[in-house]
C-alpha cells in the first residue's frame, strides 16, 4: 500500500471515521436555476475563517487601552512587515462577511430553506447574523479613532433608550456611564473572546445541521421532483461542488487582496473624548438602515418618545425574524405573505441604507 494509504488506515483504526467518510461521499447538492445561491453560506464561513486567522495575527501586535490602541494600529500599518495587508484584509473581510451573511440570509428566505425540518438552522443562522453585526460593532471601536469613538457613543446611547433594561445594558456595554478606555477593554474582550466563543459553537451547530439535513430545495421544485423523480438533478458535494466552492473562495481571496492593496483601510485621527463630535456622525453601513429610520421617526408618537419606539420596533422585528419559521405553514397564501414580507424587508434595508448614506 502506498504510504498515504497506510497513514489513512492507521487513523481510521483509531478514529473509526470510515462510515463518516462514506456519508460525506454520498452528500449531494440539488442543481437548479438558483443553485448559485448555495455558495453564499460557504463564502461567509470562509470569510469568518479569514477573520479568525487575520485577527489572531493582529492580536500579536495590537494593544487594547485608550492610550496605546491607536498607536499600536499605526505601528501595525507602518512598521510591521505586511501589517498593512493583514489589517486591511481584516477590515475589508469584516465588511464583506457582513454583506454575504445578509445575502445568505435573504437567499435562504427567498428559497424558503427555513421550512420544517430546518427551523433550528434558521434560528441559529439569524442569531449568527446578529453576532456578526456585534463583531462589526465591537471591532470598529478597537482602533480608537474619532469616527469609531463617536459612532460607539451614538450606538450605545441608542441602546440606552430602551425602557427599563436600556440603561443597565448601556452601562454594561460601556463599562461605565460614558465611552472611555474601559469601553475599549470591554469591547476587546467581547470581540476576541466572548463573540468568537459563542459564534464557533453556533457555526458548528449550524453546519452540522446542514450536513445532517441536506440542502433544501425551493417548494415548487420540491413538488415537481416528488411528482417526477427522474427530473431531479443533483451534484455530488465531494469533489464537484467542493471544488467549485474552492474556486469561489479563491476568487473571494483575490477580491480581498485587491481591496486591501488598492484601498487600504485608513487610520483616522486618534480619539479625543473631550473634543466635540464631528458633524454628521454616521454608523457603519450595515447599521445605516436602522440609524436612518430612527432619524425619520418623529420626536413623539402619541405619548411615546419616537426614538424609544423605533428601538423597540427594531427589537420586536428582530425577535420575530428569529421566529420566522413558526409563522410559516404549507398554506400557499402564507407562503406568498412571507415572500412579500421578504421583498419588503430587502427593499427597506437597501433603500434606507442608500438614504442614510446620502443624507447629511
Amino acid at each position, binding site marked *: 500500500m502506498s504510504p498515504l494509504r497506510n497513514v489513512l488506515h492507521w487513523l481510521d483504526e483509531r478514529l473509526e471515521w470510515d462510515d463518516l467518510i462514506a456519508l460525506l461521499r454520498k452528500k449531494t447538492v440539488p442543481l437548479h436555476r438558483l443553485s448559485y445561491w448555495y455558495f453564499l453560506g460557504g463564502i461567509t464561513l470562509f470569510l469568518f475563517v479569514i477573520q479568525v486567522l487575520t485577527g489572531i495575527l493582529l492580536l500579536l501586535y495590537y494593544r487594547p487601552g485608550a492610550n496605546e490602541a491607536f498607536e499600536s494600529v499605526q505601528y501595525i500599518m507602518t512598521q510591521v512587515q505586511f501589517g498593512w495587508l493583514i489589517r486591511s484584509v481584516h477590515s475589508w473581510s469584516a465588511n464583506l462577511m457582513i454583506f454575504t451573511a445578509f445575502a445568505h440570509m435573504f437567499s435562504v428566505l427567498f428559497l424558503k430553506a427555513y421550512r420544517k425540518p430546518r427551523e433550528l438552522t434558521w434560528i441559529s443562522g439569524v442569531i449568527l447574523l446578529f453576532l456578526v453585526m456585534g463583531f462589526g460593532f465591537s471591532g470598529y471601536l478597537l482602533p480608537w479613532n474619532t469616527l469609531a469613538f463617536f459612532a460607539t457613543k451614538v450606538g450605545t446611547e441608542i441602546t440606552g433608550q430602551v425602557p427599563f433594561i436600556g440603561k443597565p445594558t448601556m452601562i454594561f456595554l460601556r463599562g461605565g456611564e460614558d465611552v472611555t478606555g474601559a469601553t475599549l477593554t470591554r469591547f476587546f474582550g467581547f470581540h476576541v473572546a466572548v463573540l468568537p466563543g459563542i459564534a464557533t459553537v453556533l457555526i458548528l451547530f449550524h453546519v452540522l445541521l446542514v450536513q445532517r439535513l441536506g440542502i433544501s430545495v425551493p417548494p415548487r421544485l420540491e413538488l415537481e421532483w416528488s411528482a417526477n423523480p427522474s427530473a431531479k438533478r443533483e451534484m455530488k458535494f465531494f469533489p464537484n461542488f467542493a471544488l*467549485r466552492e474552492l474556486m469561489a473562495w479563491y*476568487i473571494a481571496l483575490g477580491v480581498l487582496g485587491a481591496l486591501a492593496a488598492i484601498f487600504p483601510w485608513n487610520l483616522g485621527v486618534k480619539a479625543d473624548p473631550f473634543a466635540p463630535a464631528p458633524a454628521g456622525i454616521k454608523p457603519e453601513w450595515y447599521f445605516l438602515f436602522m440609524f436612518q429610520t430612527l432619524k425619520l421617526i418623529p420626536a413623539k408618537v402619541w405619548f411615546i418618545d419616537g426614538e424609544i419606539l423605533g428601538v423597540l420596533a427594531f427589537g420586536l422585528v428582530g425577535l420575530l425574524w428569529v421566529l420566522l419559521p413558526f409563522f410559516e405553514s404549507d398554506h400557499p397564501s402564507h407562503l406568498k405573505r412571507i415572500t412579500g414580507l421578504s421583498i419588503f424587508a430587502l427593499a427597506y434595508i437597501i433603500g434606507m441604507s442608500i438614504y442614510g448614506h446620502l443624507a447629511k
Partner: protein
Amino acid sequence: MVILQNKTRRLAIARCLVAFGLIVFAPYVSYGQTPNSCLDCHSALPEPLGVTQEKFSQDIHAQRGLTCVDCHGGDPTSDDPDKAMSRKAGWKGKIERKQIPELCGTCHSDPAYIRQFNPSLRTDQLAQYHTSVHGKRWAAGDTKVAVCTDCHSVHDLRAPSDPRSTVNPVNVANTCSRCHADANYMKGYSIPTDQFAKYSTSVHHDALAVRGDLSAPTCSTCHGNHGAAPPGVDKVQNVCSTCHVFQAQMYEKSSHKAAFQSASLPGCVVCHGNHGIVHPTDAKLGTGPDAVCMQCHKPGDVCDQARAALLTDLGRLDEAINNADRVLAVAESSGMEVSEARLAQSQARDSLTKARVSVHSFRKDLMDQDIQSGLSIAAKDLQAGQKAMVERNYRRVGLGMSLIAIGIVVAGLRLYLKRIES
C-alpha cells in the same frame, strides 16, 4: 354675630401681624439698597431723562453701593422733586460734557479713595487724558471730543473685563468708530475717517473680533486709551515691535531704518499700512499691484536686483514645500503612512516663515540660512513621499502577481472539473 366677631378678630390680628412684619423686616428687604428716590421717577421718564432700575443695576458704580447722588448730588431720601433736586441739597443737575472729566477724576484720581474699592485700579487716567489729543482739545474748549462717558458709557458702565463693556478689547474699535468713522461728526478735523473701515479688513481685527484672540491689537493697543494719540512717525516701529520682535530687530539693523528715519517715513507703516494691515504675501516683494519696493526703488538698480533675489529664494522654498506636500498627499490617499514626513513638513514651513521674517533685514545672506534649512527638509520629505510611492507600486505589483496565481488556480480548477465531469 358670633361668627362675624370671630372673623373681625382674625382680620384684626392679621393686620397687626402684617404691620409688625413690615416694620421688622423692612430694613432687611431694603438691605444693600441705599434709599434712592431718583429712580422712582426717572425709571418712568422717557429718554434722555430715563434711567431704569434694570439699566442702572448693570452699572459697576451701583454694584459698589454708589448711587445717583454721588455724581449728581441732591437728596435721595425725599420723594418730592423740589426737595430732591434742590441746589441746597447739592444737586448738580445734568453734568455738562465739559465738566465730565473732572467730575470722574474727583474719585478716580484719588488713590486713597479708590483703594477702598479696588486697590489695584489705576488712578492716573485723568492725568493721561490731559496728554491725549482728546484731552488737549478739551482743555482748549472743544466739546465734541471724547470725554469719559463717550467711551465708558454712563449709568450702565461695566468693567472693561465684561464682554458687554464698550471698552472691552473686543468692542474698543466699535466704540472709537462711533466718532472716528462718522464723516459728518469729524467735519472740521483734519484726520481721515477711514481707520475703522480699514481696520475691519485687517488681520488684527480678524484675530481679535473673529477668532477671539485677546492678544491681538485694537485701537487702544497702539494709540493708548486714556492718553490716546498717534504714536508719532519715528516711534511707530516701537509700537509694532512689542509683538513683532524679530521683524523689528531685523529692521533695526537694516539699511531701511536709517533711510526711513532721515526721510521722516513711519517705519513699518510704509510697507504694511497702519490700520488696514492685511496678511502679507510674497507679492509684496514682486512687481505687481501689491508690490511695495518699487514705490521707491527704480527698476534695474541694485536694490531691485536684491529684491528679485529675495523673491526668487522664497518662491523656490515655497514651491519645494508644495511639491513635497503634493507627493505626500497622493501617497497618503493611496493608503501609505507618511505622518513622519508630514510632521517634518511643518518644520519646513517654519523655516519659510522665518525666511519671510528675515526679509526685514533686507539681506539675502541672512535669509539664506532659513531658506537652505527649509529646502533640505522639504527635499527629505519629498524623498519620503517618493519612497512611499515606490512602496505603493511594489504593493500593486505583489497584488498583481498574487492575482495571477489565483487566476491560475481558478483556471486549473475549472479544467479539472471539466475533466472529471466529462
